[in-house]
C-alpha cells in the first residue's frame, strides 16, 4: 500500500513537472524574444555568474520559480493594460499621433476638406476619447480624384480591418458630399468607451437665420460701398 502511495506520488510529481515545463515554455520563449541582448550577444553557459555561484535549483524550487514568474508576468501585464485602458492619452500626445494608421486617417480627412477641431478626453473608470472634425473647404473634382487615388494607394498598402474601417469613414463622407443636397458638416470619431462615428449632415444650400441674414446684408452693403469708392477713385 505504502509502495503504491510512493508510486502515485512520484507519478504526480513527474506530471506536475512536465505540466510546469509545458506551461513555462511559452513564457520563457517570450522572455527570450523580449531580451534584446539575445539577438546580438551569445554567452557560453560557464561564464554566466549564476551558474558559478548559485546551487543547482531543485525540481520543486524550479516549479515554484516558474509559477511565481508566471503569476508575476500575468499580473504585470494586466496591471499595465488596465491602467492604460482607464487613462486615455493626453490631448498633447494625440496631436503628435505617431501611429501610421491614425496619421493616415487624419491626412486623408485633411484631403477630404476636414480639419481637426476638438479632442475630448474623459479620465475615469469608463474613459472617453473622441475627435471632432469640421469641414474646412469644399472639394473640387481634382481634389476628389486626388483623395480617391490616395485612398486606393492606402488600400493596397494596408488591407487590414482597422484601416478598412477608417477608409469606410472617408468613403461615407465622400459619397454624402458628392451625392444629393446634403454635406457632412461635422464628423465625430469616438474611440472610447465604444468606437463610434457620428456624421452631422446639413443642407448644402441652407437658409440663413435672421441674425446671419442681417449680418450678410450689412456685409453686402459695405462691399457695394467699397466698390463704388474704388470706382470713384479710379475716375
Amino acid at each position, binding site marked *: 500500500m505504502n509502495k503504491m502511495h510512493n508510486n502515485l506520488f512520484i507519478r504526480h510529481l513527474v506530471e506536475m513537472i512536465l505540466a510546469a515545463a509545458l506551461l513555462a515554455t511559452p513564457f520563457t520563449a517570450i522572455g527570450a524574444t523580449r531580451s534584446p541582448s539575445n539577438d546580438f550577444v551569445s554567452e557560453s553557459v560557464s561564464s554566466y555568474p549564476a551558474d558559478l555561484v548559485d546551487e543547482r535549483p531543485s525540481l520543486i524550487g524550479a516549479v515554484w520559480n516558474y509559477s511565481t514568474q508566471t503569476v508575476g508576468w500575468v499580473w504585470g501585464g494586466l496591471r499595465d493594460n488596465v491602467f492604460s485602458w482607464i487613462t486615455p492619452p493626453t490631448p498633447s500626445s494625440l496631436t503628435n499621433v505617431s501611429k501610421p494608421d491614425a496619421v493616415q486617417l487624419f491626412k486623408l480627412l485633411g*484631403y477630404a476638406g476636414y480639419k481637426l477641431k476638438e479632442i475630448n478626453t474623459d479620465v475615469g473608470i469608463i474613459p472617453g476619447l473622441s475627435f471632432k472634425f469640421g469641414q*474646412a*473647404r*469644399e*472639394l*473640387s*473634382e*481634382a*481634389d*476628389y*480624384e*486626388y483623395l*480617391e*487615388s490616395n485612398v*486606393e*494607394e492606402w488600400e*493596397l498598402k494596408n488591407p487590414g480591418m482597422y484601416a478598412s474601417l477608417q477608409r469606410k469613414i472617408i*468613403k461615407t463622407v*465622400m*459619397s454624402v458630399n*458628392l*451625392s444629393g443636397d446634403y454635406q457632412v458638416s461635422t464628423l465625430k470619431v469616438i474611440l472610447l468607451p465604444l468606437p463610434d462615428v457620428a456624421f452631422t449632415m446639413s443642407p448644402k444650400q441652407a437658409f440663413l437665420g435672421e441674425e446671419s441674414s442681417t449680418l450678410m446684408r450689412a456685409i453686402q452693403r459695405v462691399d457695394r460701398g467699397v466698390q463704388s469708392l474704388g470706382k470713384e477713385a479710379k475716375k
Partner: protein
Amino acid sequence: MQESRQFMGIKWLSGAILSMIFPFLAGQAAESQVLPPERATGQVMYIIGSTLMKDYTTAIMDRLLKNAKLPPAIIANRGSARGIEAFCAGVGLNTPDIVATSRRIRSTEIDSCRAHGVTNIVEIQVGYEATGIVSRRDDQDYPLNLTSLYRAVAAELPRDFNDFIPNRYTRWSEVDPSLPNTEIRMIIPVPSLGGRGLIEDQMLQGACRGIPEIKTIFGAEDRVKQCISLRTDGHIAELDTPYDLNVVQTLATSPPGTLAVIPLRFATEHKEFLKVQSFDGVVPSYETVSNHQYHFTRPLYFLVKKDHIKSYRGKGLVSGLREFITEITRESTIGPSGYLAKIGVFSIEEERRNRIREASLRLSIIDR
C-alpha cells in the same frame, strides 16, 4: 459538309465586307449616335471614351482583328466623362459595351450606373499615361517642383493672408535661386486639349494644396478659379493640335529657358531634340511611373459591361468581349515590353498587374 463550307464562305465574305465598310459606319456612329444595323445582332462591339485612349483602343482592336478575326468595333471618342455617362445609361445593344477612360470611375458615377441598371462592371486598368516637362536637348537642367512651377506660371501670388498680387517674376532664378538665370517661358496646351486638364488638376491644384492662402478658400469654385488662373503677360504660350509638332517647332525658335509640358510619349518620339527635365528630383521613367515616385500620371482604364458579355454557351448580348478582356490583360499587351508600352503606355507594377489580370479574367465586378 459542302453546305457547311458554303456557309463558312458566306460568313467570311460578309465579315470581309463588314470590315471594309465599318470604319465608315464607325465614324458615322460616333458623330450621330446612330448605330449600324449589324450592332443589333450583337456581332460588333461598341467602345466609347477618352480621346487620349483612341490610339491604344485602335492598337488593341487591330490585334483582335488580326488574331481573333473579330469584326471592327464601333469606336466613339467623346472624353472620359461623356463616355462614362453613355456607358451608364443602361444595359442593351443601344448602349456601349466598353468605356475607355483616362481616369478612374468616380463613386458617384458608379451610383449613377447602378441607378440605371448597370450593376456589373468589370474595371481593368491597362497602365498609365505620363506627362513631363521638356526643354531643348542642348538646354540646361531646370530642376522644378510644384512650388517653383506655380510661382512661374500663376496669374497672382499670395502676399499676405487673403491678399494676392500680380505675378511679377520674369526669370527662373527669381522663382527659385537653384534654377538658371533665364527668362520664364512656358509652353502648354490650349484649354480644349486633354493635356491641359492634367496641368490644371495635378500640377496647379497640386501646388495650391500646399499654399495656405489658397487652400483655406472654402468654396471649390472660387479656390479653383484663383488657383488655375495663368499669367497673360507673354510668359506662357498656348499651343493647339498637332501639339507635339507645334511644341518641337516653337522650341526650335525659342530662346534658352523655354520649357514645355507634353505627354511623355511625344517626348520619346522626339527624343533626338527634346530633353525631359526632372520634377521634384524625380526623372520620369518606366520605373518611377510604375512605382508611383513620379506623380504626373493618369491611370488608363477599360470598363466592360459584364451583362453584355456573350458566354461560350452563347448566352449574353455581344460577341468578342471575352476576347477583348483576354487581349488587354495579356503580358504581350500591358507588360513593360508589350505593344501598348511601345506606343506610350507606362505599365503597372508586376504584382498589381498580375492581380488585375486574375480579377479581370474571373470577370470580377467593381466593389466600391
